């Protein structure tokens, strides 16, 4: 009996079913925890307590919110394009989830390793923009439409900066496979040689996920909630899950491309090889957790950008900077050879 169960597990593992279920479940569970952490961290940074009522120190707050959203009425506003209105949250959620299929969490734990993994993530995360713009368009609401347009323009502008900032690490690794890129960083992370690229990526990833200080699409003081103002209940929850899944995704990408993925730090020194005793998955999630903390840190620190400032930063600063970074990387690599 136990042998049969073991065989079953082995079969499911070999066909990636088990990995998919684990990654999917973990991402879903991450959302209530992340919302709680976010409110708690921001609270303490502003010398407040944050949520305290539901469970010890409010730890069950996210779960309570989830149950509440499941039981709420789903309102479809009159004049809305009903089919698109219903489709949009799913179109937002699914790409945010399936982009995780190429992220290597450890040398034994990734769903699949394809040779165009980086392109795949960029392509799939672009599809999420459709969810935003369709939600804004179909809602028949002025706030939603304005929020969606702003969001789409912002996401595509900063996607260029993200795409160009990743070229540097790719030149150094010589592969688009995420596992290959991580293995290329076994001794030296790409963080130091690509520090400019990392800076561009970090700024652009805040904008790409519509987070503060680039949260203009949902600037609550002027646009109420942005593209999902007309959504309620579970459909709103899908946008919410997609946003947090995207935060985890861009942090994971930064970890793989710049921070060495599952590799422990300081591996160029013989003494530090002792760090390899810690499983890679801890290093990976430690780095992701740190980047996620940076999201909240930035949110508690900086005021919101104005829209023209946002566009100027994206088009006139980050893109030339990223091109310059590629040029310098190219010259240095050619001279080293």
């Amino acid at each position: 009996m136990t042998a049969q169960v073991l065989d079953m597990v082995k079969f499911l593992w070999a066909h990636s079913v088990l990995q998919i279920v684990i990654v999917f479940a973990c991402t879903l569970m991450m959302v209530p925890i992340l919302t709680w952490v976010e409110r708690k961290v921001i609270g303490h940074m502003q010398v407040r307590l944050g949520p305290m009522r539901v469970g010890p120190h409010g730890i069950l707050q996210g779960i309570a919110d989830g149950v509440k959203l499941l039981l709420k009425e789903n309102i479809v506003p009159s004049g809305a394009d009903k089919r698109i209105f219903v489709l949009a949250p799913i179109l937002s959620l699914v790409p945010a989830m399936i982009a995780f299929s190429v992220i290597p969490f450890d040398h034994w734990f990734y769903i699949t390793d394809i040779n165009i993994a980086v392109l795949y993530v960029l392509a799939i995360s672009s599809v999420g923009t459709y969810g935003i713009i369709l939600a804004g368009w179909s809602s028949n609401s002025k706030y939603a439409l304005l929020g969606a347009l702003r969001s789409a323009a912002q996401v595509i502008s900063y996607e260029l900066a993200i795409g160009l900032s990743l070229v540097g690490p790719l030149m150094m690794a010589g592969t688009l496979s995420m596992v290959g890129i991580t293995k290329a960083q076994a001794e030296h992370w790409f963080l130091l040689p690509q520090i400019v690229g990392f800076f561009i990526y970090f700024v652009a990833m805040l904008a790409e996920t519509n987070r503060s200080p680039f949260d203009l699409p949902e600037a609550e003081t002027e646009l109420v909630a942005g593209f999902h103002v007309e959504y309620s209940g579970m459909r709103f929850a899908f946008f919410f899950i997609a946003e947090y899944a995207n935060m985890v995704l861009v942090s994971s990408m930064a970890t793989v491309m710049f921070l060495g993925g599952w590799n422990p730090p300081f591996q160029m020194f013989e003494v530090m090889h002792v760090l390899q005793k810690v499983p890679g998955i801890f290093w990976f999630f430690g780095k992701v957790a740190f980047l996620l903390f940076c999201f909240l840190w930035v949110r508690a620190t900086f005021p919101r950008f104005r829209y023209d400032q946002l566009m100027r930063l994206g088009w006139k600063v980050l893109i030339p900077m990223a091109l310059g970074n590629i040029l310098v990387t190219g010259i240095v690599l050619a001279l080293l050879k």
Partner: protein
Amino acid sequence: MPETIIPAGYFPIILFFVIALFFGLVTLFFGSLIRPNRPSVEKLSPYECGNPPFMDSRSRVFIRYYLVAVLFVLFDLEAVFLYPWAVVYHKIGMYGLVEMLLFIVILLVGYAYAWRKGALEWD
């Protein structure tokens, strides 16, 4: 799984897609069984901070958004060309660098033109 139709590495992605889609549809369906549904005219009207909604919401939008979209397509294509180049860069070396520089300079002319014409401004 016939290898010729879908390469083996892509099958888990399709599986993940099906699972994620299934989750989305089932959650919405399950929710529809237990949540209340009591629509009224006021509740279904678009949210405009308590005022009665006026005019059609899908009015004309600022032309700059289209301009950004067009510029995005241009530069995204450039990025797509940069990716294969970056992957084989260690093989082609200085020759590849000069070739790519020529390509980027042509694009930079267009970029400078857009900058000069004020396409990157937002006022």
